[in-house]
């Protein structure tokens, strides 16, 4: 089977699963819906992995339906992340939804709806990462909101519906900015290109970007940054995020923060590339620097002041998306590579942490940190994983986020932004302090007497262990295919030949090492 057919299978599988779950009668046992869900996420993961491996190995882009959908190295980075996070959070969901069902928080119809919308959500994210059509990118981003709003409001309580409404209205209005930006780019391109039909394809736009109207592209990029930045959770458009993430079922929060926010960043990166080609790097980089720095500083303090674990994690998402934006603001191959690596590592770490917040909620029946203590006494495996996750998210070695954060600092200094790197590092110490307090008070501390000593089931624990293993593996010995894949993706963002990246300090040495590792042994 060729990779194009495989890409079609990857995209069709969750859609078929969604339709199947939706049409099957409610009276069927829950296990049927769970089985369809698990098969769907497993097939999606395996097919995606094969495509990503093929693209990273240098087989070239995968295209389907003419060039409507395309997986180049940049998309492949995000496709690999999305499918991994979908698989692991999807497995955690089974256990978590069973728990919610036992607790009476979800009835049979709500469980069925959860699995149907989960699959639809996966389908829409795959549309985002594989779309080469700029209008389709926007449609897909909007569709991610529409497919998740009922998942955010799953529990049907006043506050979960309040969170769902805020999510719906802020993201829909925000993403409307993205539509406006998209239309401005499209209209500008259609004005220049001989065939307006080609102006919808991102790959067709890039070669013409230098001829775009600079005033229009500046407006378009600001609109795109506001629009897709809203969905990614950048300050000050992040307001929906703490509410939605804290009210959604925990594994879903993990999927939204780990994968969906990165999908929005991918679209923003596509517009960033066009803007750099059209008006030069200064304007788009300044916009990203402002949004990134503001997100980090604001969310570091907001994170510290929260008393709810999931809200803390939500603000941490804003902070980390800020780091990605900051890296794009620093620019250059180092900054771009740091941004892409941070997307991958933070996606894995945050999905893990939200799943773990689910473990905590299953044990303590709350996510209020004032009522959570002594996790190590009542759920030792969860405690070890949570401790490791907190250190990983704080950017401690040997976890992977250490690598991307160090690369962020180096890229900032290399680009001449030492004056900005210093306050950003200080803000990050506030984040470390906040997570250290969670570790000391909640992971350690004294457990309430009412909480039974028994860890959550293996179906939650095993996927979480895989997350930790990936973060350790990527932190200690980043696999050569990932390095070369990120290198190729960086070359796409820079619109340069990948061979030029070998001349860049730090990055070039890493790429040489990766090449050496993939050479067959004589």
């Amino acid at each position, binding site marked *: 089977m060729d990779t194009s057919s495989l890409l079609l299978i990857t995209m069709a599988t969750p859609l078929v699963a969604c339709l199947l779950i939706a049409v099957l009668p409610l009276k069927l046992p829950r296990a049927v819906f769970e089985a369809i869900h698990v098969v769907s996420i497993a097939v999606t993961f395996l097919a995606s992995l094969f495509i990503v491996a093929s693209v990273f190995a240098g087989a070239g882009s995968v295209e389907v339906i003419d060039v409507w959908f395309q997986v180049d190295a940049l998309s492949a980075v995000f496709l690999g992340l999305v499918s991994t996070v979908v698989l692991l959070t999807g497995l955690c969901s089974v256990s978590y939804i069973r728990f919610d069902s036992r607790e009476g928080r979800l009835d049979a119809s709500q469980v069925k709806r959860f699995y149907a919308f989960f699959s639809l959500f996966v389908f829409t994210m795959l549309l985002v990462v594989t779309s080469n059509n700029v*209008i*389709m990118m*926007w*449609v897909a981003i*909007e*569709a991610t*909101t*529409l497919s998740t*709003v009922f998942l955010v*409001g799953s529990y*049907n*309580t*006043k*506050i979960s*519906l*309040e*969170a*769902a*409404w*805020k999510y*719906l*209205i802020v993201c*829909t*209005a925000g993403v*409307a900015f993205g*539509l*406006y930006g998209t*239309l*401005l780019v*499209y*209209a*500008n391109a*259609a*004005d220049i290109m001989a065939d*307006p*039909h080609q*102006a*919808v394809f991102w790959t067709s736009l890039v070669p013409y970007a230098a001829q775009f*109207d600079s*005033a*229009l592209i500046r*407006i378009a990029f600001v609109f795109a940054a506001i629009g897709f930045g809203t969905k990614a959770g950048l300050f000050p458009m*992040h*307001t*929906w*995020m*703490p*509410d939605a993430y*804290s*009210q959604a079922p925990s594994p879903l929060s993990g999927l939204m923060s780990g994968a969906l926010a990165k999908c929005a960043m991918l679209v923003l990166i596509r517009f960033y590339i066009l803007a750099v080609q059209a008006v030069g790097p200064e304007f788009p980089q300044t916009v990203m620097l402002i949004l990134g720095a503001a997100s980090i500083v604001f969310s570091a303090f907001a994170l510290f002041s929260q008393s709810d674990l999931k809200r803390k994690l939500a603000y941490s998402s804003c902070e980390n998306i800020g780091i990605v934006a900051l890296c794009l603001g620093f620019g250059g191959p180092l900054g771009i590579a740091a941004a892409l690596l941070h997307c991958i590592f933070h996606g894995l770490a945050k999905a893990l942490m939200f799943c773990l917040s689910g473990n905590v909620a299953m044990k303590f029946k709350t996510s209020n940190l004032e009522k959570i203590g002594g996790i190590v006494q009542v759920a030792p495996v969860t405690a070890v994983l949570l401790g490791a996750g907190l250190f990983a998210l704080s950017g401690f070695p040997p976890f992977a986020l250490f690598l991307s954060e160090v690369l962020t600092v180096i890229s900032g200094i290399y680009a001449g932004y030492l004056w900005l790197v210093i306050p950003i590092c200080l803000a990050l110490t506030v984040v470390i302090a906040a997570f250290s307090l969670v570790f000391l008070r909640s992971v350690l501390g004294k457990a309430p007497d009412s909480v039974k000593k028994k860890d959550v089931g293996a179906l939650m624990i095993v996927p979480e262990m895989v997350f930790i293993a990936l973060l350790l593996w990527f932190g200690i010995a980043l696999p050569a295919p990932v390095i070369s894949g990120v290198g190729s993706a960086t070359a796409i963002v820079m619109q340069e030949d990948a061979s030029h990246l070998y001349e860049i300090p730090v990055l070039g040495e890493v790429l040489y090492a990766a090449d050496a590792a993939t050479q067959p042994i004589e």
Partner: protein
Amino acid sequence: MSAYAWVNALGGLLIVTSTMVVLARSVKKSAILYALQSFVLVLLLVSLAFATDSEVLFMWSASAFITKVVLVPGMLLFLQRKLGADSQDLGERLSPFKSITLIALEVLICFAAIQGVDLYTAAEVKPALAISLAHFFIGLTCIVSQRNIVKQIFGYCLMENGSHVTLALLAPQAPELVEIGIATDAIFAVLIMVLMVLKIYKTTKTLDTRDLMELRG
């Protein structure tokens, strides 16, 4: 009066009708005024089709009539019937005077911003282009300034209309598929918003954003 002059004049009328949508106090009135404003948008698309000899724009105006003049107001009137008496007084955060002042300010700023745009297709329709951008921000103002969640749906609809007009003005030869994709997505967005409002109302018995402030972003 040339076709382009009609386009710019109808653009002006769009601002008047969208201001009326923002100021209306009941769902029924807002829905009817929104249908009226969408009809003005359809006329603008027809005028632009004549001005640019674009056959595609005739198709757009037909689909805009079905989606924006019939379907979306229909969904909102359905919502009004389901909500009953509670949809009569929507309330607002800003007084009508402040709303009109803000809208006027937005129009002025957008006119200034559009002056820098130097596109061939935009040369004849700069006033309408500025108005379409302003229209987008009027929708945003409606979302921010209203304390009723139903009114926020109208805000989104106005933003979407602003984008639609901009696309038509700047890319009159754009493939029909582009317009269909955007319109379909907008209809689904309104449909889901309507369903969410009904769900919220059923659970909380309120449509007031002040009662939905338990969570603090």
